[in-house]
């Protein structure tokens, strides 16, 4: 199966190890993975700020880069959701329509498409799982606490396959971390406070690591942990699933 690797811009630039882990993990499961070299960004930073009209060139570039694969996989719930919901070009091509249905966040791809039942990974730490809102409420990677519906978690089920890993229970399992794209600077005070409160929930429950299927949340939480000189670290879920 031909898989195109869609790596969000900030992962490419600041967290290459997350992209490497994603690539290696997919290769372990026998995928033929290509990384289209001309990719930049999904356009979400503009669109979420109300400048969707400025993301047209980005969208066209995306279609150019990602046409012709069986699947497109990304280690980001947020960017995946953006493509699914907002990838529109002026030409309304069939290619873009196809891309919107072919794009998967990594953990949903592992669970729903590859139907992963076991993992060789080992990660002997206490881990707190942060639910990114776009992954959870947008892509339904996990059940949402607001709804009266049966619980499930795609990333959670994968983490439970990792040897030695202990998931900690949080007081607020799906509260937003406050990153929110440009919100993190335009609403700095609330964003930082939300981040501090999220971090505190994990730290109180003695997590060694905070993990998530979205690096943007983790980048924000990492900034706070480092400022607090906390011993708790962040790690993307791809790195855990690819560990050991």
């Amino acid at each position, binding site marked *: 199966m031909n898989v195109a690797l869609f790596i969000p811009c900030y992962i490419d630039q600041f967290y290459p190890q997350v992209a490497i882990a994603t690539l290696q993990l997919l290769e372990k499961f026998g995928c033929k993975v290509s990384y289209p070299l001309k990719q930049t960004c999904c356009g979400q930073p503009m669109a979420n700020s*109300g400048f969707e009209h400025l993301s047209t060139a980005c969208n066209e570039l995306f279609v150019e880069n990602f046409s012709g694969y069986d699947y497109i996989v990304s280690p980001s719930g947020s960017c995946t959701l953006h493509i699914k919901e907002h990838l529109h070009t002026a030409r309304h091509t069939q290619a873009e329509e196809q891309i919107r249905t072919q794009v998967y966040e990594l953990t949903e791809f592992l669970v729903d498409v590859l139907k992963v039942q076991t993992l060789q990974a080992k990660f002997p730490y206490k881990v707190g799982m942060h639910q990114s809102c776009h992954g959870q409420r947008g892509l339904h990677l996990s059940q949402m606490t607001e709804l*009266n519906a049966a619980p499930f978690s795609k990333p959670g089920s994968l983490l439970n396959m990792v040897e030695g890993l202990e998931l900690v229970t949080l007081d607020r399992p799906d509260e937003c971390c406050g990153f929110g794209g440009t919100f993190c*600077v335009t609403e700095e005070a609330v964003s930082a406070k939300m981040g501090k409160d999220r971090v505190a929930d994990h730290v109180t429950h003695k997590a060694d690591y905070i993990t998530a299927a979205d690096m943007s949340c983790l980048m924000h939480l990492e900034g706070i942990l480092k400022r607090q000189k906390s011993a708790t670290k962040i790690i993307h879920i791809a790195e855990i699933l690819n560990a050991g």
Partner: protein
Amino acid sequence: MSHTKNTIAHADAAAVFNKDEARVNWHDKTLWFIREKRDKISHSIDEWEQLREYASQIKNNVLSNLSEYLQQFEANAITNGITVHWAADAAEHNAIVHRILKQHNIDRMVKSKSMLTEECGLNEYLEASGIEVIDTDLGERIVQLAAEPPSHIVLPCIHKKKEEIGELFHEHLGTEKGASDPEYLTAAARQHLRETFLTRRAALTGVNFAVAETGEFVVCTNEGNADMGAHLADVHIACMGIEKIIPQQQHLSVFLRLLARSATGQPITTYSSHFKKPQPQQQMHIVLVDNGRSIHLGKEDFRNALKCIRCGACMNTCPVYRRSGGHSYHNAVAGPIGSILTPNMDMKKNADLPFASTLCGSCTNVCPVKIDIHDQLYKWRQVIVQEGYAPTAKKASMNVMGWVLSSPKIYDMAGKAARWTLRNTPFVVNNKLNPWFKEREMPAAPKQSFKEWYKTNRKIHE
């Protein structure tokens, strides 16, 4: 009392609110407690999600037949002996209420909770005309004594600590100095307001639901203040937005099951009063208010915000609302629902509000009538930018970003430059001009991007 101060943008007001972190924690926890009660009780109803779907469908039907239902309601209400008034905007609404009071030579009135009258600025208007209005909902009375607007549509003084309320009551109601026990303070308010109820000849109430089929309207309270006011008055004035209509009486079952559970986690409010006809010798008036709603109805992307039943669940669950307080939304209706209703009324004044969200989507999930709140926030952002209400600096940076991200070469260069800067001259970004850095470290900048790594570690077929 004036609520029409210069508007402070949400982010600035929120920054002030966050200067007292202990208070933010308290505010957040108090509201989260209500969200948890809502979860618990809604999860105990097997058909909860089905009820939300029914409520949503009923409201969709209402919006699609609103003119017919309004006329049906009007005809039935008139047959029931109720006088029906129509107000195109806030000014007309206020003038109608004023006229009714004048006709009866009334200069003192009690009022139970009505967010519509907050929206219309009725209290200020009447006070300027020499008419005293006493809000009888305890929370509303508290904020009225404090000369503040409510900060929450269901819990008007959720931002106030009991010690502050004790201080207010000491000043205005003569309670003991330093007393802050909620039971003691409530008893004092009960005494004070009982005398008021017994001496006022006019009572104004809000309306939760108005039934087209029967011409009756339903008012829900826990305190019984709407009833104490209305039944003891010669004149009962009920004010409602035109979207409060529901088609049939049986639909009340769906909405009354959802409303209090969503609002406070109670199975039902203590009182759900059905007003169909005036008492003998009493006058009952209904004021049907448009004030921008009929315009809103025409906006396809945004019309279903008019399904709102004002339960406040979206506020209680909103992580931003909990940490910025209701007043930061500078409107009668705060929080996520306020942020999608108010740009329709005044886009310039409220251009900041759709951005006061992380688009986390929790609001949409708790909404008992399934309003797509966070999707509308996203759509309002596009409209606000298109209409030219985005700050200039933001426009410029977005233009640059759009340009960089549409070109792989420029993107690679810019990325490399940014990483170089972070590694070699971190003081360029690690300073107080960078809002990120205020409470967060910047990410470490690796020498190699993933793309660079990939080029050296994997075979490339270009």
